[in-house]
């Protein structure tokens, strides 16, 4: 919303205060200001000229050659008499006009750049400057003719000195006044400024309306949706264009001028925040005006020419049976006052915020009126606005008179409920004590009623703050605090007993796993969206699974919430593999499973940590990722088994046979696997891609394992190399387990150091070469112990279908 400083000054004297200061003070006490602009900037060079003579251009029918007098070469202007060629149809001898001289520059307007004026020849006639239209000055869209000033305007004066055009315009961030219905007009801000600077706010006074005469009957069928409806018939109006000053004032805040009556409704709305509608009285006829809910299927063509389909939620203003306006949003086509109207019916009503919001949102129709009603306007304002309108109308159109009393079937009587503001509560919430006088002064300056009590104050809230903004004591704390200014509150540290906060193991575990994974094992952490692309799911063969669905996604492709982190992490690979031959990535994220839900009806949530390791060529990184996972888990005190072949039903991207479960105490907490080669192909990834995933909550379930001390061996350990020939299908884990059990207590460690496959072996066989470390607590082991151990291995190797080599 735009605020004009010139406009604000009609309500409160702001002389001596720099616009920048006003911006700063409003920001600190009231609302966020997004910008401050000079309106009319660059118009200072323009001068008032007198068209002495106008002759037709010898060579062009539509051009005139004018002799323009700029007065004596003293005072503000350079003076002199100029010959100017002018194309405007309305230029005439005797007019006072606005002239720009050669060498001066017209400011840029919107897309149009600045225009530097030069002496030029137009169809052979020299022109020394230009006579300007309003559009050229940026004062309106009017460009059909030049701007003609009042005949008594002093010749040679600076245009900005004789016309009220220069202004400062503040751009308010609308979001910051969503909760303040009173700030949707200039008067509300003037009230704030009067309070901030301790100056007088000019009251808006009621007019005396006739006690009898003509009035239109108003029937409100739904008092809840329409708490108040004021209507007034006004006769003797002329709907010509508004005077310059009014049009320029509206232009300064970005409002297009239409005609006096419409302009005045807009003016009152921008002043008091009360939207109004001026109906042609002829259109309303004998009435009655009925405020009712629309009937399902009913239609209305609004002012913008759109035919709107209505529902029973929408509120209508009807004349008799005929719908004439979408209440609080937009008038109907053909209801607006036109030039030539001499009598109007002025509507100034109050509508329930939620009703207007729903209609406006459903139709996608946001108007200045709906924006204001949505904020819950003050019903008292509806009547005040009528008086304000009538006074302004009579100023410009002295013949205008109220045809009769106000139609106001609902009326409005505001009975404020006092709110107690305790001194202690104020000190508590602000963290600072403020003297009573100061508190009372602040509240009174904002037009609250203040009554001192023993504990503090009894405060009555003015009607314009009572609709939604101020309801409880803490709301008053804000009023005092913001006017006192939060900046004046000194900072104070928290204090209390020293105790370590309860520790969230789950979050710390994730953090440490990421730190170890990234900083020790070379993974780079990425963040992916929770939305997973359909194409990625298709690539992962998971498109048919159930997903939590977004009803209003940013794009149809992003309507699904991921169940697992891995598919999106896989999708991060191709781009990175273009720049590097090997990529390791990890991601922490949540997966959602709609088939299960918690006590709040929320889908089951899984916290995952996923890893991918991909290289364009070379050995498969499966072994490396597996060892990395093992090392990470060991490092954090969650050592796990990876010895059980795993088949992920919910993870079709896992290789069907080349995968192990990560088990803790026999329950799976994750997996390590080859990427499924089919998925690798469809996602354009190398077959040499390894994946791993941890379910963090499952990992935590079996607790952390703290290392236990075992005495450092007194007697030396005996490493024994064992090579076992086994079938390809025999897993290493099983052979290692065999080597461990065969040696019973003597076996301290079993480490695979080589897998040999080659011509020297029979087809379908592999040789697993281990170092088995033997040791005893009470003696030094000898060759005899080694021989015994190998003998047992040889004897029992058949139990795993193996054979001791060498």
């Amino acid at each position, binding site marked *: 919303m735009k605020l004009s400083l010139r406009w604000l000054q009609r309500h409160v004297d702001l002389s001596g205060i720099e616009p920048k200061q006003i911006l700063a003070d409003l920001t600190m006490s009231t609302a966020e200001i997004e910008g401050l602009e000079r309106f009319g900037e660059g118009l200072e060079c323009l001068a008032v000229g007198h068209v002495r003579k106008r002759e037709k251009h010898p060579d062009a029918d539509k051009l005139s050659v004018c002799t323009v007098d700029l007065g004596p070469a003293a005072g503000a202007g350079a003076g002199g008499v100029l010959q100017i060629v002018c194309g405007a149809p309305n230029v005439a001898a005797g007019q006072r006009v606005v002239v720009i001289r050669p060498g001066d520059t017209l400011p840029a307007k919107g897309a149009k750049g600045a225009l530097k004026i030069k002496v030029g020849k137009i169809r052979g006639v020299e022109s020394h400057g230009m006579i300007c239209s309003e559009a050229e000055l940026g004062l309106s869209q009017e460009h059909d003719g030049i701007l003609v000033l009042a005949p008594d305007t002093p010749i040679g004066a600076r245009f900005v000195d004789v016309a009220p055009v220069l202004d400062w315009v503040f751009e308010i961030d609308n979001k910051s006044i969503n*909760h303040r219905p009173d700030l949707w007009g200039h008067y509300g801000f003037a009230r704030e400024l009067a309070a901030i600077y301790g100056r007088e706010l000019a009251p808006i006074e009621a007019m005396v309306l006739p006690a009898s005469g003509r009035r239109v009957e108003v029937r409100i069928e739904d008092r809840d949706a329409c708490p108040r409806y004021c209507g007034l018939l006004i006769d003797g109006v002329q709907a010509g264009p508004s005077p310059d000053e009014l049009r320029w004032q509206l232009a300064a805040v970005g409002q297009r001028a239409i005609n006096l009556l419409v302009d005045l409704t807009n003016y009152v709305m921008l002043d008091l925040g009360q939207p109004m509608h001026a109906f042609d009285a002829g259109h309303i006829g004998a009435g009655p005006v009925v405020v009712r809910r629309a009937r399902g299927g009913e239609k209305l063509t609004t002012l913008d020419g759109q035919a709107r389909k209505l529902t029973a939620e929408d509120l209508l203003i009807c004349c008799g049976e005929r719908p004439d306006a979408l209440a609080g949003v937009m008038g109907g086509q053909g209801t607006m006052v036109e030039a030539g109207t001499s009598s109007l019916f002025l509507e100034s009503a109050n509508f329930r915020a939620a009703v207007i*919001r729903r209609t406006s949102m459903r139709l996608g129709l946001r108007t200045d009126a709906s924006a204001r009603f949505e904020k819950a306007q003050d019903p008292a304002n509806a009547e005040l606005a009528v008086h304000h309108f009538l006074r302004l109308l009579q100023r410009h159109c002295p013949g205008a008179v109220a045809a009769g009393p106000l139609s106001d079937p609902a009326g409005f009587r505001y009975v404020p409920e006092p709110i107690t503001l305790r001194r202690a509560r104020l000190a508590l*919430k602000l963290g600072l004590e403020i003297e009573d006088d100061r508190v009372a002064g602040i509240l009174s300056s904002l037009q609250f009623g203040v009554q001192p009590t023993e504990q503090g104050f009894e405060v009555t809230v003015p009607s314009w703050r009572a609709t939604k903004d101020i309801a409880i004591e803490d709301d008053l704390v804000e009023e005092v605090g913001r006017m006192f200014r939060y900046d004046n509150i000194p900072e*104070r540290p928290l204090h209390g007993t020293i105790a370590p906060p309860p520790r969230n193991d789950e979050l710390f575990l994730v*953090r440490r796993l990421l730190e170890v994974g990234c900083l020790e094992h070379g993974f780079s952490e990425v963040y992916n969206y929770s939305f997973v692309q359909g194409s990625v799911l298709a690539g992962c063969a998971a498109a048919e699974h159930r997903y*939590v669905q977004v009803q209003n996604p940013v794009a149809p492709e992003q309507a699904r919430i991921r169940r697992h982190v891995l598919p999106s992490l896989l999708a991060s690979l191709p781009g990175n593999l273009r720049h590097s031959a090997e990529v*390791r*990535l990890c991601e922490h994220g949540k997966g959602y499973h709609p088939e299960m839900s918690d006590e709040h009806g929320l889908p089951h949530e899984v916290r995952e940590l996923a890893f991918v390791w991909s290289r364009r060529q070379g050995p498969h990184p499966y072994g490396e990722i597996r060892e990395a996972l093992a090392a990470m888990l060991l490092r954090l005190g969650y050592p796990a088994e990876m010895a059980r072949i795993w088949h992920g039903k919910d993870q079709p991207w896992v290789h069907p046979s080349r995968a192990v479960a990560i088990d803790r105490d026999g329950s799976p907490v994750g997996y390590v696997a080859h990427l499924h080669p089919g998925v690798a192909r469809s996602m354009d990834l190398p077959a040499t891609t390894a994946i791993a995933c941890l379910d963090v909550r499952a990992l935590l379930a079996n607790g952390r394992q703290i290392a236990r001390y075992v005495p450092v061996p007194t007697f030396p350990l005996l490493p024994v190399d064992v090579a076992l020939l086994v079938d390809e299908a025999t897993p290493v884990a099983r052979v290692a387990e065999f080597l461990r059990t065969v040696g019973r207590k003597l076996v301290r460690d079993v480490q695979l150091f080589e897998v040999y496959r080659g011509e020297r072996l029979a087809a379908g066989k592999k040789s697993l070469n281990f170092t088995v470390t033997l040791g005893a607590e009470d003696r030094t082991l000898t060759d005899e112990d080694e021989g015994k151990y190998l003998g047992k291995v040889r004897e029992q190797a058949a139990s795993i279908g193996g054979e001791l080599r060498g």
Partner: protein
Amino acid sequence: MDTTAQRDKWLLAIAEAADAAALDALDTRLFGAKGEVLELVRSVTSLPKEQRPAFGKAANALKQEVEQALAGRREEFAHAALANELAATDFDATEPGPRHVRGRLHPITIVQNELVDLFTSMGFQWQDGPEVESEYFNFDALNIPADHPARESQDTFWLSDHNLLRTHTSPVQVRTMQRLSKHGFQPPLKVIVPGRCFRSETVDKSHEHTFYQMEGLVVDRVSSDGARGIGTANLIHTMKTCLRVILERDVQVRLRPGFFPFVEPGFELDVNCPFCGGKGCPVCKQSGWIEILPCGMVHPNVLRQGGIDPELHTGFAFGMGLQRVVMLRYGIDDIRQFMGGDQRFLQQFPEVPR
């Protein structure tokens, strides 16, 4: 007995030794099992008794002199060898070693961890909540009833059954309070909740539909006279401390009114612009200030929803935009990078929390 000739011969040999190896050979010749010097010393036994003391003394002196000469010469060789070694040019100290694979934490994680460290050191607990949230926790419990304009301004992603993607981390406020008040609330409560939030926005250089917030909540008991407890003054101090640590500089902040339904009063906290130092620049839209932290005193209705009596307790809450802080800290100008998954971006932030 005159030993001068031998002395001269030996010393000359030592002086003329070509290298350390020659010196070692000479050492053996003179001091080995049948070394010339030792032989000379031993020859004392063949002398008449009365000559022995004098000869012995002279011989030992000679032995010492030769030993010293040897040691001196050895030292010379060692020096020369070291000098030689040092003068070698076959090494390039600027040559890098074998490649170390460097992994990285995401920059948001780095900053988040640093904030977690800071706040946990001040006694805050680190909490988390679901990203798929109910309408109740995201809105109703936070004093944002249906038809409240604040709902619309949050551009919610709706799911089915009145569920949604949380639009802020604030739902965890009420979740935490409810959990703690179930068995009688034991103040103080100090919690931070960093996490992922969602608002339906078109993504561009400065807008993201997926963003990271860090919620903070402090609730404590009110003193018996009702005038002391958690107040705005505490909020200012806590926020200033936080910004000072995370931006690694002394900061100026200003607190101005801001409206959020779940706080009363509500504030916007601005920090002086790090790019221009407060003079005004395009980043701060010439104001000298950057809006960084919406915050406020917890609304009584929110405390009530959490099962906490607002007459006996007060608190403050804040919601810091993490991306904003990360961008300010590293000078990142494109918010899309965070969710882009490009290692060329992610590899740029090597440090871990202090």
